[in-house]
């Protein structure tokens, strides 16, 4: 049965849409990631206009982050004060990102910028994750080796506007999480992702937050950032397709349950290694698209 998506203005088989949601939901449940970085390129690949893919995915991430944050909240693993600083930055960044997105779309460079962002950021994160997990797998084979100092003092600790984050056991400048979240917010708006794949490692290694509060806190702020993108894109470009978002979500919710069950059977470093490989593959595929000579150097876009 085909369904005509009212905002995307494309007709897709309903099984394809729900299956896509389910497949990516499975991976996100297994690895504990949002999955936006897989969903958005897949939607574009299936013929959904890039603007609709990015805005709709933001809408879907609102839902998946809400459902994810509840469990962390219950366990008390959300640093709301840190979350508030992050989401302030995130709101500023994502608003800028939405603006940047529409400018790039008008001058015909949005496809390029989306692909380049994926290649650069997924490439870096994927490579780092892969190295880290290989090292972790090696380390388990030779017990006794311990990680060296994690928390180092450098120029970042000399910044003004210092704030105490009790839950994160930190006393750092609020500018640090603010600008970090603003930067990720811009990427969220352009790439159609929650940004957890950058935010989580940055919160651990850059801010020095304890790992147990990181995921809950990042999910908490992603809700607001993606809600902001959903609202701004709704008003400015009318590209949020909530029928598409709803169908993807339906598949993703079910897929994530099965994924989580498979995930617990695998070891942490194996999971991270596998995720790193997927991330790198997406990055390489999009990078390849940019380099390989196109079949036709001319393309057409119906702007309406």
């Amino acid at each position, binding site marked *: 049965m085909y369904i005509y998506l009212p905002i995307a203005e494309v007709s897709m088989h309903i099984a394809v849409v729900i299956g896509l949601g389910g497949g990516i939901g499975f991976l996100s449940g297994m690895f504990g990631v949002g999955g936006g970085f897989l969903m958005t390129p897949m939607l574009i690949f299936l013929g959904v206009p890039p603007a609709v893919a990015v805005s709709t995915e933001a809408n879907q991430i*609102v839902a998946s982050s809400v459902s994810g944050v509840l469990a962390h909240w219950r366990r008390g693993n959300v640093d709301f004060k840190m979350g508030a600083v992050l989401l302030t930055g995130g709101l500023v960044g994502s608003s800028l990102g939405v603006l940047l997105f529409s400018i790039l779309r008008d001058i*015909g460079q949005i496809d390029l910028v989306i692909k380049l962002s994926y290649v650069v950021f997924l490439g870096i994160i994927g490579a780092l994750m892969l190295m880290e997990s290989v090292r972790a797998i090696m380390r388990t084979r030779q017990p006794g080796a311990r990680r060296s100092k994690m928390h180092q003092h450098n120029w970042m600790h000399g910044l003004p506007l210092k704030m105490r984050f009790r839950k994160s056991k930190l006393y750092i400048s609020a500018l640090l999480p603010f600008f970090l979240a603003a930067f990720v917010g811009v990427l969220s708006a352009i790439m159609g992702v929650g940004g957890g794949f950058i935010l989580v490692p940055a919160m651990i290694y850059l801010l020095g937050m304890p790992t147990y509060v990181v995921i809950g806190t990042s999910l908490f702020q992603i809700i607001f950032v993606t809600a902001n993108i959903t609202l701004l894109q*709704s008003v400015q470009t009318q590209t949020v397709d*909530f029928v598409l978002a709803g169908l993807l979500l339906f598949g993703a919710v079910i897929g994530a349950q099965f994924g989580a069950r498979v995930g617990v059977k695998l070891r942490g470093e194996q999971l991270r290694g596998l995720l790193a490989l997927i991330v790198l593959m997406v990055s390489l595929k999009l990078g390849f698209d940019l380099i390989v000579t196109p079949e*036709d150097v001319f393309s057409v876009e119906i702007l309406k």
Partner: protein
Amino acid sequence: MISKKRLSSLFASLIFLWATSFVPVSANTLVADLSLEEVAITTDFNGESLLLFGAVDNAYEDDIIVEFKGPALKIASRKKEQISGIWVNRQTVNWRNAPSFYHLFSTRAIDDFLSPEQQRELAIGYRNLGLRPQNSSLPAEGLNKWIEALNRNMVERGLWFQHDGGVTINRGVLFRAPVSLPANILPGDYDVRVLHIKGGKLIAEDRTSIQVAKRGIGAFIYQAAHEYSVFYGLFAIAFAVLAGWAAAAAFRKT
């Protein structure tokens, strides 16, 4: 804008009627109609097939051309160039009057019974649509390259199409042309022109039109998104929050 355009086309057709009323009455008549009055884009829309049919006088040895033309929208062509190894859109042509849909059907290859000049006079074929860029003024040769590229890109999307042999004439009187509208068709007014060609000359013509419109829940959602965009956005967020909460609650128990 639209009403102005409509008014001017109405005016033009009135002049046409007035002018043709002075031409000696010929026996050549052509009547065409479509099997549907409207194409409704509903939730389960996946393209639509319809039939253009009609009657013509003494067309045993003659040819018929059917032109199915969609609304002119903002269409941009872009050309990629390689910059330090990466393919980047470098040039853009915004078309002023390119139809978003252009299907041409004929009894046989049009070049076999109309010369390029005759095709130009009758404004038949994508080369004779008078396509002009909005912004830059390209030299004629460059423009042709862009028009050919536009045709290639639109044909690939199924929006432009030329079907030689797409019209069949039965016993010299009845003709029919099956038309299939793809799923990526855009709403608007579609104009149909039917031409009866004898010995390189146009001897009868008929026009009709059909509206492609969104209908049902999809139309309602589209309208809500465009006219009440703030509420739509807030609703989409509320829907997502509720759905996320419901999903978490549903799977917590199991």
